[in-house]
């Protein structure tokens, strides 16, 4: 068994961080003070069967079937997979191919919403709560992972990796700390921030459940110090609940990509996730704060992942906000209800501007991993002319993975792919800090991304 570096004893002093990173303009003031709200229900729900990392779900309903809110409509089809549940009462109108944000078509279940019945159900659920001091004795570790699996829980931070796998104990890799990621380092996004302000109890209960499931003896929640109110609220909720587990609320420096797990884990634990490895290799289980809250509701109330909070923001939208929306809501429904897109809107980003993919159109559904919709204007997204590298080394200084992006990009351009592989191109997390900082406007991360695909296409041992 591997010997892990002992955890730092005191995590609460000062702001912790990782080497490298950049400081993009935050723009969080647009939405950070706006409470989470619900909008009118959409008349149609589009539920893609692949909203998570891994194999797509298999549909368990057919055309014209009546479905209930929280009913499973698609089942997991493998180890890395997740079921899909209907967020509404309604009728399946079709199971067909719909446009995906990638430009490809994907299979999805289309449901015509019974708005009245769904509304009633939502009002009835409003009573449900989870407090930080949730009694964990009825929940054995198996029961917790089962709830996550059956509820179709996946990471809400963006990667949408099935949560139950993260919570499953691995014999050879004992977990000694469970972390919650509340850094929300992407500019513009404030969904996690609002969750911490409005649902601290559910988040803490979720962390305690994650600790119990994984056998972690310690827990910590990492929050960037640009959210002092969230740090305060979580600390107050923790001390008020008086939970038995040792949990720290950790202040992190405000720096992108602080919320990447390969940045957050070293910042808090002092251990790096090995190249080619995963958090369990560093003795860590890590969830987003929103995922932790969803876990608490799944365990305590049997509620599957059918809704999520996302930030609809950017200058391309008239009324930005933090919205609690059913999974599968067409983005057009959200944007049009909030006075958008504006005349000068030019880029629709699913997520934040540093890592979110751009969407060509609005007829796409909200998916489980979608933490925001950021709409930027023409003036913000004007293409900049790429000029020659002046070897200033800024990309090297900011790379959180300790790579040399300028060198790797040159190898990729020259198709020296095996050399790029040997210089650890696959360790790139595609955070985009290099492209962000480059004074010559070289699309470094884009070269690295395509290079990674070329490395994976190399014959083994070439």
């Amino acid at each position: 068994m591997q010997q892990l570096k002992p955890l730092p004893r005191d995590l609460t002093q000062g702001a912790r961080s990782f080497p490298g990173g950049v400081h993009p303009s935050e723009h969080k003031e647009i939405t950070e003070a706006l409470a989470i709200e619900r909008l009118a229900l959409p008349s149609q729900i589009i539920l893609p069967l692949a909203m998570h990392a891994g194999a797509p779900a298999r549909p368990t309903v057919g055309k014209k079937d009546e479905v209930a809110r929280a009913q499973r409509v698609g089942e997991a089809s493998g180890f890395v997979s997740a079921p899909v549940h209907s967020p509404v009462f309604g009728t399946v109108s079709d199971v067909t191919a719909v446009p995906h944000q990638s430009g490809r078509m994907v299979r999805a279940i289309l449901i015509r919403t019974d708005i009245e019945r769904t509304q009633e159900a939502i009002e009835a659920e409003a009573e449900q709560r989870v407090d930080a001091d949730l009694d964990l004795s009825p929940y054995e570790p198996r029961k917790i992972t089962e709830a996550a699996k059956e509820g179709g829980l996946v990471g809400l931070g963006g990667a949408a990796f099935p949560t139950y796998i993260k919570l499953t104990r691995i014999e050879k890799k004992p977990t000694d700390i469970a972390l919650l990621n509340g850094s929300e380092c992407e500019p513009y996004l404030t969904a996690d921030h609002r969750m911490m302000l409005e649902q601290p109890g559910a988040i803490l209960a979720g962390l305690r459940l994650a600790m119990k499931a994984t056998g972690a003896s310690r827990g910590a929640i990492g929050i960037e110090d640009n959210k002092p109110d969230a740090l305060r609220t979580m600390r107050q909720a923790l001390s008020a609940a008086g939970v038995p587990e040792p949990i720290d609320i950790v202040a992190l420096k405000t720096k992108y990509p602080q919320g990447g797990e390969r940045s957050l884990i070293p910042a808090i634990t002092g251990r790096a996730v090995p190249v080619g490895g995963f958090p369990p290799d560093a003795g860590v289980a890590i969830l987003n704060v929103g995922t932790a809250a969803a876990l608490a509701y799944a365990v305590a109330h049997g509620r599957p992942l059918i809704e999520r909070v996302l930030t609809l923001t950017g200058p391309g939208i008239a009324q930005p906000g933090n919205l609690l929306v059913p999974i599968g809501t067409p983005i057009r429904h959200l944007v049009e209800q909030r006075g958008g897109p504006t005349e000068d809107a030019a880029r629709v980003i699913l997520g934040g501007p540093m890592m979110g993919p751009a969407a060509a159109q609005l007829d796409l559904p909200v998916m489980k991993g979608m933490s925001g919709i950021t709409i930027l204007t023409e003036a913000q997204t004007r293409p900049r002319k790429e000029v020659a590298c002046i070897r200033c080394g800024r990309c090297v200084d900011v790379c959180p993975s300790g790579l040399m992006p300028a060198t790797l990009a040159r190898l990729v351009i020259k198709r020296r792919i095996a050399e790029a592989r040997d210089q650890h191109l696959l360790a790139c997390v595609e955070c985009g800090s290099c492209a962000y900082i480059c004074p010559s406007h070289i699309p470094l991360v884009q070269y690295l991304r395509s290079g990674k695909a070329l490395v994976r296409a190399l014959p083994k041992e070439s």
Partner: protein
Amino acid sequence: MAKQEDGKLRLFAVRTSPHVSGALTTPRVMYDVLIALVPAILAAVWLFRGHAVVLLVSTVAGAVLAEMFGNRLLRREQSIGDGSAILTGVILALCLPPTFPFYFAALGGAVSTGIGKMAFGGLGYNVFNPAMVGRTFLTACFGTMMTTWIEPGTLATIGGVEAVTAATPLGLAKQLLKAGGDASLMAQISSQMPALPRLFLGNIGGSLGETSALAILLGGAWMLWRRTITWHIPIGVLLGAAVFGTIAWLADPAGVVNPLTHLLGGSMIFGAFIIATDPVTCPLSAKGRFWFGVGVGLLTMLIRIVGGYPEGVMYAVLLMNAITPFLDRWTATRPVGLGGPSYA
């Protein structure tokens, strides 16, 4: 699908992330260095009056014209706006003796960008520091003129009374080394050596912009604050020079001038903050930049104390430029998490 009022589906441009970028641009980097040189330029104009202005104009004109010509020849878009040719010209002028003829200075400027940069393919592709290429050319061609120094402040009468020639502190240091134990000669040379505060302020014989350590340090502080440069190269240079200088001085206190004179005299400070920090010709990683700086400092002192020239920054920088590709390899960064989880 929902349509817009005119019946067309509104489409948005799709690009890959990141969708936002930092404010820094290549011209901004160059102009930041130019701003950093303002104190040194002002000091040069104050100390050497009209000579400084004439030389600055000549080298910049030569550098800019050669770059324009090079772009024409290579059928490239003009690149004067990026500020790098102007910067090269200014740096070259600040490395010249005040009485250097302006037409040769212009020629030096042209060689700097024409051969030092455009011949390699333009900004970003040059192997050697362009200003140092120009200076080497001038030293090789006009050796005597390149080493004729005058006393600052004696130039109020340009074209009239001849300026007073003066030895530089490093010239004196070299004489001291060559005095070969002749005690009276050594005492005489040592008595001419300017005091350290004067070296710091720059009221001494030397190149236009290199004499005032204070002015250069002000510019260096600006660049560090703007993050135009990092500390690695300047500290590396000064450390390398200080270590070599101290050992040599301790070994031969009578023959070798004290290390502080070496740091403040000549172009050590200018080299550390302005010349060696040219990003194109130094290594990429912070570690590489530090060792590059140390190399420049050590080689400079080797040339000054052991070699044949009183000054060595120029050759030290060019030599280190030449081994930069190797330094890049030796000082490649280590990926986070390589070798296991206990590394952070």
